[in-house]
């Protein structure tokens, strides 16, 4: 994994920062009351999104969870339209209908985040099945947290994916918490990858805070899936540096735990790797600055964007008018 081209490493560095800074703005503006609802941040987990999406084409399917910002940006969606959606503007990805938890960018293969834990898993299996049936070479990736493994539909989807040998990559972001409950409390099974074994679904558990590790594992998994070898599961051990939602007081975590998490920061780890390779600090700072101003510009533009017109509230309920209401 050390023989990666420099531009690739710089690309990862840039993307990690883009997500981190983007979510920093979400957090900042949420505190000011500018973000409706309860956005969920992926701060600390960015390496999973970046390392996995590096191997996806624009038309590959991504299904995300309620913690979706990183996945959507890593898949290549426009930060302006993404941010505009998070603050409910007409220019948003979903015209303000979805918000942070329900981001959809279908043109870019982002089939949808879901506000329901585990709500995305079987949908991803369906998309993968469609790709298989059409033979169009696409694959589907579904991101979910370890909390989702308590849901029966996770087990049902593992079964279907294996049974039908679907081109589907399960990516579990195991951040140790299901909402406010630690993994030790809500499950007796230490590793999520163990759930896949009975279904003969190849699974591995990796360090999800090291983008290079994620990149290598995702490369192998995606290659195998594209070759028609059936579904795989990657369990990425990571850490949610933010609370469950913006404003979560996190009383369930100790000070020591919060301090230790700084060492797990995926950005710090990639920077250390690059510095070790002798890359100049000035270059890294320049990337960070460039991304910061780009994100800042997108956010400011989104803040100026128009709110949806209430008169359009009936739009999009059906993709074609119901016959009885067509004339109404």
């Amino acid at each position, binding site marked *: 994994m050390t023989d990666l081209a420099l531009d690739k490493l710089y690309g990862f560095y840039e993307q990690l920062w883009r997500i981190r800074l983007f979510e920093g703005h979400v957090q900042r503006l949420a505190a000011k009351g500018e973000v409706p609802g309860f956005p969920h941040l992926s701060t600390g987990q960015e390496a999973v999104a970046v390392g996995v999406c590096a191997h996806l084409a624009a038309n590959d399917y991504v299904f995300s969870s309620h913690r979706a910002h990183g996945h959507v940006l890593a898949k290549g969606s426009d930060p302006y339209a993404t941010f505009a959606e998070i603050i409910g503007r007409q220019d948003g990805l979903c015209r303000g209908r979805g918000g942070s938890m329900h981001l959809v960018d279908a043109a870019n293969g982002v089939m949808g985040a879901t506000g329901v834990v585990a709500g995305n898993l079987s949908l991803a299996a369906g998309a993968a099945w469609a790709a298989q049936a059409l033979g169009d070479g696409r694959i589907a990736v579904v991101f979910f947290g370890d909390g989702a493994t*308590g*849901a*029966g*539909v*996770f*087990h*049902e989807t593992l*079964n279907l994916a*294996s*049974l039908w040998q679907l081109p589907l990559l399960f990516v579990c972001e195991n951040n140790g918490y299901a909402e406010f409950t630690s993994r030790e409390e*809500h*499950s*007796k*099974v230490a590793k999520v990858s*163990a*759930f896949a*074994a*009975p*279904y*003969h679904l190849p699974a591995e558990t990796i360090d999800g805070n090291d983008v290079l590790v994620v990149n290598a594992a995702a490369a192998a998994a995606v290659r195998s899936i594209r070759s028609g070898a059936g579904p795989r599961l990657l369990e990425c051990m990571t850490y949610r540096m933010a609370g469950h939602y913006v404003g979560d007081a996190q009383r369930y975590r100790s000070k020591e735990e919060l301090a230790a998490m700084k060492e797990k920061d995926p950005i710090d780890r990639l920077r250390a790797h690059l510095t070790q390779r002798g890359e100049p600090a000035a270059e890294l700072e320049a990337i960070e600055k460039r991304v910061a101003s780009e994100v800042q510009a997108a956010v400011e533009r989104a803040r100026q964007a128009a709110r949806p017109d209430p008169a359009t509230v009936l739009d999009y309920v059906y993709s074609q008018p119901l016959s009885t209401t067509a004339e109404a």
Partner: protein
Amino acid sequence: MQRKNDPGERVAAMLRIRRFEEQCILLSKDGQFPGHYHVYIGQEATAVAACAELGTDDFVFSNWRNHGHLLARGAAPDRMMAEILGKAGGYARGKSGTLHMAVRELGVPATSALVGGSLPLATGAALACKRQGRGVVVAFFGDAALEEGACYEAMILASLWKLPILFVCENNSIPPAQRQRGQYTSSTLPAAQLVDVPQALQIRTEAVDGADADALAECFDRLVAEVRSEGTPRFVEVRCTRWPGNFPLWPELPCGQWQLDWAFGQSPDRADLATWLEQSDPLLLYLRKIVAAGGLTREQVQALDERARAEMAGAVRFALDSPFPAPEEAYQHVRAEQGATL
């Protein structure tokens, strides 16, 4: 409820189930009750062995194939048959029919006819047992339940909350030896063996031959004792081979009612039935074994069978004679009686 390890009682319990189910098939063919139904022929030894280990504080949860479980638990065949026919004399006065038959006083509070539907309920009853410091739960279900998220969630809870429950998966799908290449244990589960699934959830498992009444008795004796003493769940896969009469959409009696002579030298003139009897019929195999060992004489078995036939003929008469419920009965029991204030 039967005495444990008494060959006569074990044989009687299995014969009662078989003769009950045969009457059920005959009544259905005769148009005496509407709707689909499921019989337990070929799996009798499982219910008999499991229920032999249970006392009055224990609970049994079942599914649409519940007749055997209920009879083994001690339910009255006449009231069961009346319920199957939708009569007022049934346990639920005709409201449950065959699919949802329950007998509260025997620790069978509800029976779901949804695949996997009883398992969360069974887990809850086990939670109650744990709180009350008495009783265990035996939950019977088929192999298809393992394809349901409900089953998986129930096992997660039982494991996490450390509940006294024995999950009994009666796998009556195609047995490993007869499986064609590419066929699964159950038609839609890719696991090499069903026990792999609960094992991944940190539940201790084992598999047992559903045609071997002695092995079943030993297995349930041990597992129920473990669940009782340790208060944690266990999972057992009982590998049964489907009785040929259960292959068609509606159950049929191949070569008529089961004959005692088939255990002692004679053979039915249908090859698939003959093979099933020789290899997979827990009743026939146990009878042969116990008579050869001198535990029972053939005459004693004959007498037990006659008693079972007579009992079930009586149940049929009771059910046929029982009136249908009055139309007003439809409005009863929508809600339990209760006060409206604190």
